[in-house]
């Protein structure tokens, strides 16, 4: 009973904060709501005894990714009003599509094949059980192949980001005195021999 109350509390918080992310006008608030939604999903993961995932979500996403994200949001001067143009025009189409989707999803999710009774009930583990060890064992045996591909994807992301943003442009226009001192006349002045030109009278 107590567990259920906690679950519904965090689930409601998650849905609410996720909705706020896309509805609030201020992008900084949106980013902060995203942090809140990460926290509530981490709490739900804790209840599933996936401690490692919960901690990693908080450490990596909240601690690193979202802080960076906030930096970017604060640095950029985003004018949101052009983004909202045409909202009313596209609204009817959007509502029809959204309604269709909700009905179809409702049919699926409410079905007997998708309900909670369809899955194995989770059995609580004994005290010495280590979630991290189990995860490590899986990642480096059964899921080794996928794990390696994920690594390759991250490597590609790094290569792409660097090759697209790194410009070897000389921004610094400082002078080098030793070059200026060593300059010779022929480096600067070029004598050109040419036939004299006379304008026609």
């Amino acid at each position, binding site marked *: 009973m107590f567990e259920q109350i906690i679950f519904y509390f965090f689930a409601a918080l998650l849905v609410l904060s996720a909705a706020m992310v896309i509805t609030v006008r201020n992008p900084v608030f949106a980013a902060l709501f995203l942090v809140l939604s990460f926290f509530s999903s981490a709490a739900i993961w804790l209840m599933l005894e996936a401690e490692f995932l919960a901690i990693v979500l908080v450490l990596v996403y909240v601690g690193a990714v979202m802080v960076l994200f906030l930096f970017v949001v604060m640095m950029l001067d985003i004018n949101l009003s052009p983004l909202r143009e045409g909202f009313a025009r596209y609204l009817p189409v959007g509502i029809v599509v959204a309604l269709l989707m909700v009905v179809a999803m409702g049919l699926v999710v409410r079905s007997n*094949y*998708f309900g909670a009774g369809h899955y194995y009930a989770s059995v609580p583990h004994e005290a010495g059980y280590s979630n991290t060890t189990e995860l490590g064992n899986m990642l480096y045996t059964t899921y080794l192949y996928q794990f390696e*591909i994920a690594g*390759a*994807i991250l490597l590609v992301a790094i*290569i792409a980001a660097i*090759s*697209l943003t790194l410009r070897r442009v000389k921004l610094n226009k400082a002078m080098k005195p030793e070059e200026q001192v060593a300059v010779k006349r022929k480096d600067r002045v070029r004598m050109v021999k040419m036939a004299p030109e006379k304008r026609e009278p």
Partner: protein
Amino acid sequence: MEFDMVNNLILVVPELTLLILACLALVIDTFIKNPASRGGIYWFTQTSLIVTICLIYFYCPHQPTVAFENSFISDPMSTVLKMFICLISFVVFLYSRDYLKENDLLKGEYFILGLFAVLGMMVMVSAYSLLTVYLGLELLSLSLYSMVAMHRDSQPATEAAMKYFVLGALASGMLLYGMSILYGVTGSLQLTVVAEYIVQQSDANHFLVFGLAFVIVGVAFKLGAAPFHMWIPDVYQGAPTSVTLFISSAPKLAAFAMAMRLLVDGMFPLLGDWQGMLIILSILSMATGNIIAISQTNIKRMLAYSTIAHVGFLLLGLIAGSRAGFAGSMFYVIIYALMSMGSFGMIILLGRKGFEADNLDDFKGLAERSPWFAFIMLCLMFSMAGVPPFVGFWAKWFVLKELVAVDMVWLAALAVLFSIIGAYYYLRIVKLMYFDQPTSMLAIKASQQMRLVLSLNGLVILALGLVPNVLMALCISALTR
């Protein structure tokens, strides 16, 4: 649980080797200081591809074998497709080198990202679980997005990359959503378990079809079938020609393999459901592709619409739903990749420094400037249009034959009608080359190897048209297990 690492790893040796070689290329590239010796990375890339082809040949098991708990499969289809992917990428890199050099784009990253894209395609081809399919697709797409954006100072390229990235991310999201529903219903990521579940719980199909619809959206986007084709014309036109050449050839084979794995290996019992969806996609693709291509003046854009039309045709083989139909589709996609590679190669051949031969007018009077390459282009265009002695005709023929065999004569008739409409814009290029006056008489400047391989490319189209059964037998044997 004891995990037999060696027996699992031995099957993925080609992929592992390619990954290691790509990382090595990355390290070597950092040590090349002199821009003049950038070509070194090109040779390294080509060697890596040849090594990979050899390894695929040596490490292919005779029976379909799975590894890593059913998430990887090595079977005849994957062997054939992987070898073609590596071979086509090899030729693509060969074509692109001159282009990159002339446009100051020759950087190591182009080839390194290309190698990673090839790796992604190979992962997709032999993926046997939803997770592997998705990861392979992401590896391929991420490399392609950045290759399109590689030409940073070109506004069309940046715009194309942005569109490709946003739409591609949306399509990946759709695919992932569909996969998560399949996982939610069946409780497994493995394609074999999904297939078993569908057979056992045949009354749960309504819910699986909901997931299937999203999966089809993802597949259709990657193949470029209408109405998910919006990115193709802009990306093909905006991207540097060498990248367009790459996108339009090898990844189509991987997308075909993805469709085969997901729809045939994973959801064959739902044939009746995805058949209907594919029929709509196929008709729409053939219609939009063939009709809109007529009004194009830019040849890259025209070939983009022609891609959409060809994808519509290729889906017909899947719609037939028989082993022979799938073999017909596989034949079609291989032939399409060869033809597309040749056509974009021709655009690269005619271009020079600071000039892209991407307008239809640039092909005017090619027969006077270079009779031989006009003939090669004629082979390619006749083959794309499906004129009998060329292999494009046989590709269409095999697919249509299987369609008629399953009593879908109306769809076959419609396909023939659309390809007749499509013949117009292919033949227009032949007319421009042979009957119009050239706008410039500049000699064609290209390296010897480019000329040689491009000629071979055209001649292979002609030769395969004379003996289509060689490749067809290979496709049939790859798909009968």
